[in-house]
């Protein structure tokens, strides 16, 4: 059996014919397996949805109770038989509930990793390496200039800035699902014990994280506070809010942005950021290449991001590699702003 007999890239996402399902479809399908809750991967309107409990919960919070015909929660490591294929979900380390999906059919093992990162994150299960024959990897940061370094150094930078500018509000742009909660948890780990304020758009997801026993300390809604009095405080908000009318009432805001894109100066400047924080929920170049090698896969499919460099690298290592041209990941909404924010 060839890998293409198990999984076929189609314009609506990766399709598994023998199993009768799609993974992260970009258009409604009969049966969908969803890797994680970010809106470019998890969309409403599918017939049946299989995902981790957390991903299902997140989809319900975002799209309402009728986001799918039927749902089935799958635990990490649990094996599910779908027609001619056997599938299982494994931690991807990207956000709460995120999973890689392993598909086995006729002795051939394919892993669709979704989005993943191979570094510690206090708000989700750690990435698990799954040996396979074909590995489908993302390539958001698939260029050797993306080296994320340790995220703790970045939160320390933020805390130093608060010491130096105690009268200024520190706005931290972070994607509502995952990044925002990770930044808050990291700040707590670094000993920051003042209340952290959040933008209303991330309230539901943040409260959900807290309900899953993730301790974020005292988190207040900025809506209920007097913005002018938030000097020396951290306010976490969606990146788009930072440059919007909303940010105007804070005292001399320092604008920080927690994202892997902040590694490149031109990107940081384009966002008008004064304090770029290189904190990414995607694997960096070293993470991507070491993971690819470690899976033992002899064939690599590369999706969304900087495919060229990663495909080239695989080939120099004697691996069969090809880009998958699936439209729809990382380029929905506001000219990519959201996709960048998720990074």
């Amino acid at each position: 059996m060839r890998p293409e007999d198990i999984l076929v890239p189609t314009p609506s996402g990766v399709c598994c014919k023998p199993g009768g399902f799609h993974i992260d479809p970009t258009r409604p399908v009969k049966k969908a397996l969803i890797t994680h809750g970010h809106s470019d991967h998890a969309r409403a309107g599918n017939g049946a949805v299989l995902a981790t409990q957390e991903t299902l919960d997140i989809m319900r919070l975002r799209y309402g109770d009728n986001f799918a015909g039927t749902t089935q929660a799958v635990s990490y490591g649990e094996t599910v038989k779908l027609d001619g294929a056997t599938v299982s979900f494994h931690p991807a380390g990207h956000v709460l509930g995120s999973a890689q999906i392993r598909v086995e059919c006729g002795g051939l093992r394919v892993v669709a990793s979704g989005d993943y990162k191979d570094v510690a994150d206090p708000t989700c299960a750690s990435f698990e390496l799954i040996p396979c024959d074909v590995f489908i990897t993302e390539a958001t940061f698939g260029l050797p200039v993306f080296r994320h370094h340790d995220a703790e150094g970045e939160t320390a930078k933020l805390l130093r800035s608060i010491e130096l500018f105690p009268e200024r509000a520190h706005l931290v742009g972070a994607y509502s699902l995952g990044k925002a909660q990770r930044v808050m948890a990291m700040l707590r780990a670094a000993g920051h014990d003042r209340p952290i304020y959040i933008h209303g758009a991330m309230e539901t997801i943040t409260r959900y994280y807290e309900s899953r026993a993730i301790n974020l300390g005292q988190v207040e809604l900025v809506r209920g506070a007097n913005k002018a009095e938030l000097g020396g405080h951290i306010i976490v908000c969606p990146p788009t809010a930072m440059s919007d009318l909303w940010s105007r009432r804070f005292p001399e805001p320092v604008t920080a942005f927690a994202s892997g894109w902040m590694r490149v100066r031109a990107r940081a400047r384009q966002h008008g950021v004064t304090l770029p924080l290189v904190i990414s929920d995607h694997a960096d170049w070293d993470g991507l290449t070491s993971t690819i090698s470690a899976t033992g896969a002899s064939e690599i499919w590369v999706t969304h991001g900087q495919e060229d460099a990663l495909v080239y690298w695989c080939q120099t290592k004697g691996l069969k590699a090809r880009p998958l041209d699936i439209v729809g990941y990382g380029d929905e909404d506001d000219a990519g702003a959201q996709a960048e924010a998720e990074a």
Partner: protein
Amino acid sequence: MNRFAELLDRLAYEPGRNAKLRLITDYLRGTPDPERGWALAALTGALGFKHAKAGMIRGLIAERTDPALFALSYDYVGDLSETVALMWPADPTQKSKSAPTLSDVVQTLSTLGKAQLPAQIARWLDGLDETGRWALLKLVTGALRIGVSARLAKTAVASLGNRESDEIEILWPGLTPPYLDLFAWLEGRANKPSTRDPAPFRPPMLAHAAEEPDLTALTAADYLAEWKWDGIRVQAVAGYDEHGELVARLYSRTGEEISRTFPDLLAALRLPCAIDGELLIMRETRVQSFNVLQQRLNRKSVTAKLMAEFPAHLRAYDLLAEGEEDLRDRPFSDRREQLQALITRLNDPRIDISPLVPFKTWNDLTAARADPSSAGAGADAEAVEGVMVKRRDAAYVPGRPKGSWWKWKRDPMVIDAVLMYAQRGHGKRSSYYSDYTFGVWSKGENGEELVPVGKAYFGFTDEELIQIDRFVRRNTVDRFGPVREVVHEPKSGLVLEVAFEALQRSTRHKSGIAMRFPRISRLRWDKPPAEADRLETLENMLTQREHATMPANGGGNV
């Protein structure tokens, strides 16, 4: 080096002056000698080592990375130092242990032979992290562009000892990196370092911008007026060193030494003195426009041909010192008399005194400002930017003291243009669309179309900014990254009255014309875009100006 790199990193993103000051002061306070001294030298441009070439840096990375991956990366990042800093394959286990100090780097660079340079830089890069490598590469290639002036760095160091930056400025020419004596004095551990500089820079006195009502409240008889020339404000200083040799220097308004750019003028400074004046280009006794001066400034090497074609001239406003005598506490009228006497003794065609504008009442001065050519400026009127009004009894006080000097600029040229694109500003304005590209009508391939003629990001009030911002948000027709295209049709769009000081030809602009100092002077909500100005209007303004400044044309005033 890591701490210095972190400082550079923050400074490069921070738009606010006060925030920058705070970052630098915090660094200087928390960093030991001599490290901080070398950092201060780097920020003030006082480091003297020979810079590494980009080709060498390329060579280093080529030995260590795959050429195809480097090409893709460089293409994405767009900056060589940054690409190399990020791609450098460092061994994470040996970091921090072998990170060089800034002192190591600076001292090694000043003694190292060219042949050993690549290996040394590679060793340093191995020991640094991404930001450290970026800072090191910027430093060794001499491309440390982080938006900090020497003046700002001096202000920061002054605040360590609660001193004024002017005090540092006076000491500065006598100091050398790493400035141990300076820090010791500022921290109360030693006496003030002595300055033995024969030709020091003295911080300049600046004027407040005046409007007519500001002046009419004053007594005309207490003031003198002179032309404000459109050149570069400079300080020309000469003095005897310990061997009795006369040392002459030319400084910009911010204290940067520009002697090497104007050797022709320096030769004329044959007496010990400190003159505050305007640097101009003079051809056959006619002052040339700023555009002409700009052409000389744009050339890298100062050749005999350039100096002959663009002869530098000093038009003196004030005398700060003569011989050993400091005149700054004396009244302006006295200083001016002494300046006149000095210039007579110098007797050099390259240096003259800026003439007084005679006036009895403010109305006289209003008339002179409106028509400088008939008020004494004659054929040079084109180079007059306005009038300076100075209190007769005012001492020369560094900075911008209240009530002593006023600058009253001529009315600018204005056109009505149409807003085409808007971009968000920086710092406090980061949430507002405050940078505007505007255009005027022209006949194009597809009929009437707007061509961009300039960009402006100030001139409007806070209230107007909110109105334009709202207009931009509601009338966006397209987006290009951070730039919004705003509706600009004959019947819908926003007309901006744009004021500017001068026009010049430019090959960098699609319209072929560049504006000097453009700003938004009024919002014309009442005017439909179809009635905005045309490109021909600007071209006419430009040709008239060009005729006016050509000697053969015999002069006249536009």
